């Protein structure tokens, strides 16, 4: 689900005007166009039931509690929403309430004056969400309220693990290598990765960096964009080690992440590989890629990214990210109230009961019913800290360069040092 809209947008722009990139740019008007009347436009990506119906009910309840205010709900498929948002950012004509993914992306939007500061008007909600909002803060101010926050880990096929004689989920890299050997010996491809889309490959490096570097080093790097600490090179070395065990599906360099049966998610969903590193969206994605709509069903297993020997990072720390509601500059009055309402105990509990994601309001966490999501929720809440996906944290320019060079390492065309160099070079552009 995450980020797969980019390809579609690119194709669209590319074929429209081949010679120029202008068709996808052009807008200079930075003032968001809030409507004059009392209609709040709200774009969301809960396009399927029960989410769609639930949000309609939420909007109706809000209208009833705020007479004279109307909420215009626009439900879109995730990819469509990402595309339309990109266009809206460029034209400056944003919906009143929309989704932000945090980090550098958000910081760019803040800098362009597109997003409202919610620090004061949403103080109560921010207080309740606690550390969960940190990914949506810029210079100490909060610009969006996360409603779903998930973590990345290994999803695996319990039946195939059993078949290969693996009794316990790996907790260290050595145990992971042993599991890979066992799976290969049993004639099973151990892991699938959609390196064709780059970010799934990049998640490996993010994790090795998270395990190799201490929290203070990472936090410093996110703000200073300085990656000179040795642990970043170490991260690449650990990843090279993993690559040397040749654990991935054949043709992984061009495999897409989650589109179609031959994608990384498709391979896991159809029993062709034993595991895949992916986020909380994976069960849902796999369900969409199997004929019976069940994904891996009862064979679905999950374990956290293993610890690295000699690494400074906390093995309990997780890589993750989430979705947050933001209010655009110049939005209709009451938009912030709507966002506050969306994060209320009541709405978040309903969100959890419908298994629409991993709720951020502590009052709602116990309401999650899906066992896989409930397990993730435990891991997430036990984590000392959650590192936002680096590419989101650094923004597209630096994050994109980082992903590109990690993909090169996967293709054996770059060294661990190259990843650091390429990232710092891209960061130079930002300074």
């Amino acid at each position, binding site marked *: 689900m995450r980020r797969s809209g980019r390809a579609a947008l690119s194709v669209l722009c*590319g074929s429209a005007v081949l010679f*120029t990139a202008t*068709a996808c740019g052009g807008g200079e008007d930075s003032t968001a166009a809030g409507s004059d009347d009392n209609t709040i436009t709200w774009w969301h990506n809960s396009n399927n039931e029960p989410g769609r119906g639930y949000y309609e009910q939420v909007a109706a309840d809000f209208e009833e509690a705020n007479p004279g205010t109307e909420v215009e709900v626009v439900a879109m498929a995730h990819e469509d929403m990402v595309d339309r948002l990109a266009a809206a950012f460029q034209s400056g004509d944003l919906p009143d309430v929309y989704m932000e993914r945090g980090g550098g992306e958000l910081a*760019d939007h803040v800098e362009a004056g597109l997003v409202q500061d919610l620090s004061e008007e949403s103080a109560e909600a921010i207080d309740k969400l606690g550390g969960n909002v940190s990914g949506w803060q810029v210079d100490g101010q909060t610009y969006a309220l996360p409603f779903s926050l998930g973590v990345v880990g290994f999803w695996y096929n319990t039946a195939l693990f059993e078949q290969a004689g693996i009794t316990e989920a790996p907790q260290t890299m050595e145990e992971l290598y042993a599991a890979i050997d066992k799976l290969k010996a049993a004639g099973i491809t151990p892991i699938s990765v959609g390196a064709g889309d780059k970010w799934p490959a990049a998640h490996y490096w993010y994790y090795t960096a998270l395990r190799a570097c201490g929290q203070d080093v990472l936090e410093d790097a996110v703000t200073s964009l300085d990656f000179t600490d040795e642990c970043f090179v170490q991260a690449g070395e650990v990843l090279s080690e993993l690559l040397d065990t040749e654990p991935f599906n054949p043709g992984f360099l061009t495999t897409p992440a989650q589109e179609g049966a031959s994608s990384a998610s498709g391979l896991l969903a159809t029993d062709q590989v034993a595991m895949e590193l992916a986020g909380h969206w994976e069960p849902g994605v796999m369900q969409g890629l199997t004929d019976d709509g069940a994904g891996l069903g009862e064979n679905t297993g999950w374990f956290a990214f293993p610890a690295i020997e000699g690494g400074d990072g906390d093995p309990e720390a997780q890589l993750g990210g989430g979705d947050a509601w933001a209010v655009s500059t110049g939005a209709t009055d009451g938009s912030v109230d709507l966002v506050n309402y969306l994060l209320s105990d009541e709405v978040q509990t309903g969100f959890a009961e419908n298994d629409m994601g991993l709720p951020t309001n502590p009052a709602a966490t116990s309401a999650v019913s899906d066992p896989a999501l409930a397990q993730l929720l435990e891991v997430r809440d036990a984590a000392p800290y959650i590192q936002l996906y680096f590419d989101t944290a650094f923004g597209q320019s630096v994050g994109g360069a980082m992903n590109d060079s990690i*993909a090169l390492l996967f293709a054996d*065309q770059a060294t661990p040092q190259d990843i650091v160099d390429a990232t710092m070079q891209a960061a130079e552009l930002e300074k």
Partner: protein
Amino acid sequence: MTEVTAAPAATSSGAAVTRGGADAPRVTGRRQGAKRRQRLEILLFVTPALALMALFVLYPVFSAARMSLYNWKGFGPMVDFAGLDNYTRVLRDEVFTDAVIHNFIIVFASIAVQLPLGLALALLLNRRIRGRGLLRTIVFVPYVLAEVIAGVVWFQLLQPRTGLLEQAVSSVGLPVPDQGFLGTPDLALATVFVVLTWKYLGLAVLLFLAGLQGVPDELHEAAQLDGASWWQVQRRIAVPLLAPTIRTWVFLSMIGSLQLFDMVWILTGGGPANATTTMVTYLISMGTQRSNYGIAGAASVVLFLIGFVMALAYQFLVLRRDTKADA
């Protein structure tokens, strides 16, 4: 002057004597009116096209050129003026220079492979052989197919291990690369080129066949009467007379190869390890994926200039011969 002033007088008097003198200016006036009307008509019919052209071609070109001078993320005001920095960045970026090389490899490979292949097929299909219609259709169908659909189909066919094509190759005992044909950096560009050839050979054959229809039968007959073999007739008569068509095809192929995007995007996305990046995949990923719209703008201007210079040079050096011949 006098005639003109005389004209109304003549008309009012109705004198036959002045008729001859008065008629001439009246005709000129009518002609001028007709010309003006013609011009108005031209303007009327051309304006919408010109307006669209300005809106969708000229404006984007200038806008891209302007964008290339700024550091811009795609939203907010365009204020961070960078001068020619983006051009330096693009030209120093190995990924881009490699992309230019890839484009030129495709340009030359197309001419070196598709031209002889297309010509041979056209000459063959121009003969009265059994199943000619079917063969022509088979060759032409890939060209009609949408590029995106063809790309998706080939992507599936080329899947490592499970793809039909790989299975076919390995079933006859030939080795298949570990990463598959598209996933191996050394093979990816060649594989993309094979798919492009499959896709675009039909266009070459179609054009050449059309060109061959223009070769008068008398020439063939005369040559045959002189005892020339089929091969001699093709080599000495058909191919030389086909030269203008070939030159046009080369031009189209050249421009198409420079703009190569869809097929690469679907098959490899420019990877693995940038082995198949083209100028357009570079600028699209720099723009929409990396939000470096200034760099994307600079790359698009460079692409535009390369295309423009090549088109001009080709027009001047090669195609001019054809227009001269017509004149």
